[in-house]
């Protein structure tokens, strides 16, 4: 019997998709190992917690306090650690998002628990969970076993399937948390205006130095808009100041795994590939047929961006209309 706990991430009261992925993964593991799945969420108002039942969660506890509206590392850590200590769980699963990557190590340190972060697979071998995670920017993978009594697994978003939810409803319990520790407090969340972030997008159109200048990124934006995609960039164009750092994909940027990644005028340097190699479908447009990006691309056009991209945009417009 393994008691699983899923930490549910919410922002503005909305549950993140990656938390459904974690819930579904926990329930899959519980059915193989024998066990139960509970969930916990922290915040003031959170909607739809009962819907977690559709992903295999039996019970959700909402640790509630009116003053904890935004993420607070200190308040969340305190609340989750207390909840785990009082209720005794064996394995804690959560998304390796910005919040999850901040919270998981804090919780693990407090519980003296082993942590496997950024997992891309969790398999059962005997009575153990074997976590697979990329290392060296995805140039290798390691299989790890966590041996502490409490184990923490943070799952790379977009990799695990949330499946199709059933109609089951989870039992929701609300526990008021007194005097949360607000020593570390988020006082404001600055949203990049109306923009889809590369780390959460299902499709990305990314431009590199082959775009020749910031003035040509209108084409990247137009194609992205047509596809409902986020815009990404190589480090070369970010360092040149053509695009904001938040768009950088790669080893020192964001690691992404969308369904579709379109690389335009990007050579495919090892550090860039590190950030996007796990994309499901990769399309490359580059005039150099020997560019390394073609080695990992599923489809490519070895041609000039300025000739190919306008036609690509037209063609997508046609199929979308």
């Amino acid at each position, binding site marked *: 019997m393994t008691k699983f706990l899923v930490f549910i991430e919410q922002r503005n009261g909305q549950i993140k998709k990656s938390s459904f992925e974690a819930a579904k993964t926990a329930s899959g593991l519980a059915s193989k190992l024998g066990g139960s799945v509970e969930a916990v969420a922290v915040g003031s108002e959170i909607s739809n917690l009962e819907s977690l039942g559709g992903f295999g969660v039996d019970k959700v506890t909402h640790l509630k306090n009116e003053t904890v509206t935004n993420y607070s590392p200190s308040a969340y850590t305190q609340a989750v650690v207390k909840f785990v200590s009082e209720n005794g769980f064996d394995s804690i699963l959560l998304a390796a998002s910005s919040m999850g990557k901040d919270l998981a190590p804090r919780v*693990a340190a407090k519980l003296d628990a082993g942590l496997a972060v950024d997992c891309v697979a969790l398999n059962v071998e005997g009575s153990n969970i074997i976590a697979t995670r990329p290392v060296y920017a995805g140039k290798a993978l390691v299989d790890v076993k966590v041996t502490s009594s409490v184990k923490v697994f943070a799952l790379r978003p977009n990799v695990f399937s949330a499946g199709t939810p059933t109609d089951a409803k989870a039992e929701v319990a609300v526990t008021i948390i007194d005097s949360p520790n607000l020593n570390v407090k988020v006082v404001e969340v600055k949203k990049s205006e109306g*923009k889809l972030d590369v780390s959460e997008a299902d499709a990305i159109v990314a431009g590199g130095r082959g775009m020749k200048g910031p003035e040509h990124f209108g084409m990247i934006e137009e194609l992205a808009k047509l596809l409902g995609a986020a815009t990404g960039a190589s480090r070369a164009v970010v360092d040149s100041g053509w695009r904001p750092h938040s768009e950088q994909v790669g080893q020192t940027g964001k690691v992404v795994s969308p369904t579709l990644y379109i690389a335009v005028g990007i050579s495919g340097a090892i*550090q860039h590939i590190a950030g996007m190699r796990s994309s499901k479908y990769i399309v490359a447009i580059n005039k150099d047929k020997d560019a390394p990006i073609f080695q990992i691309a599923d489809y*490519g*056009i070895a041609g000039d961006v300025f000739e190919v991209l306008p036609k690509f945009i037209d063609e*997508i417009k046609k199929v979308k209309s």
Partner: protein
Amino acid sequence: MKIAVCVSHVPDTAAKISIGGDGKCIDPAGVTFVVNPYDEYAIEEALKTKEKLGGETVAISLGGDSHKETLRKALAMGIDNAVLLKDNSYRDSLSVAKALAEEIKTQGAELVFFGKQSVDFDNSVVGQMTSELLGYNCVSVVVSFALDGSKVTCEREIEGGKEVVETSLPAVITTQKGLNEPRYASLKGIMAAKKKEIAEKQPAPANNFVEVIAMKRPAAKQAGKIVGTDSSAVPELVRLLREEAKVI
């Protein structure tokens, strides 16, 4: 004020990685090791903070003798002192954090900079863990940092934006690209660093909870299709994306 920086020593990001004979770690032969790129931002921020507010800086690294190269680089950039916690064995993140926390306590550092992530095992967790062990406040993935008295104001990167975070000393900050532009070591700095002593200490032995069972290569990707060399290939590309990949 005492300011500490924790630095790791990692394969250059351009290095080709091959798996060692034991099938659990990389083969270091032919791999160039460098200062972890994120830790350069941590070093720079420590130096900037000292220049503004005074104090003393110390760089700490846990690892084998080769880590002295990275400590030497930190000294050359302007860090005052360096400590090597000498240990050649594998350690998981929590046991690295435990050793670092002990040394930070010994040093009496009130402000500690870490990189966001060490680009070997790409965990991105040691700073946060160390802060919890020390009972320090911590802000991770920081792209702007201001210290006013004991009040700390940072911006940290999140999906689709930034969080403005307030906290106070003692604090751990983990640094992200965008925070600053790391300086180059001057020739004078490099010469001075050569003469400085790097203190060596023996950390408590590791007690690992995360065991590496196997290291393996990612599945090779099938070579893709080059559909064409100009815009006449676009309709076929779009057809493949719709009918074969079913992504648009």
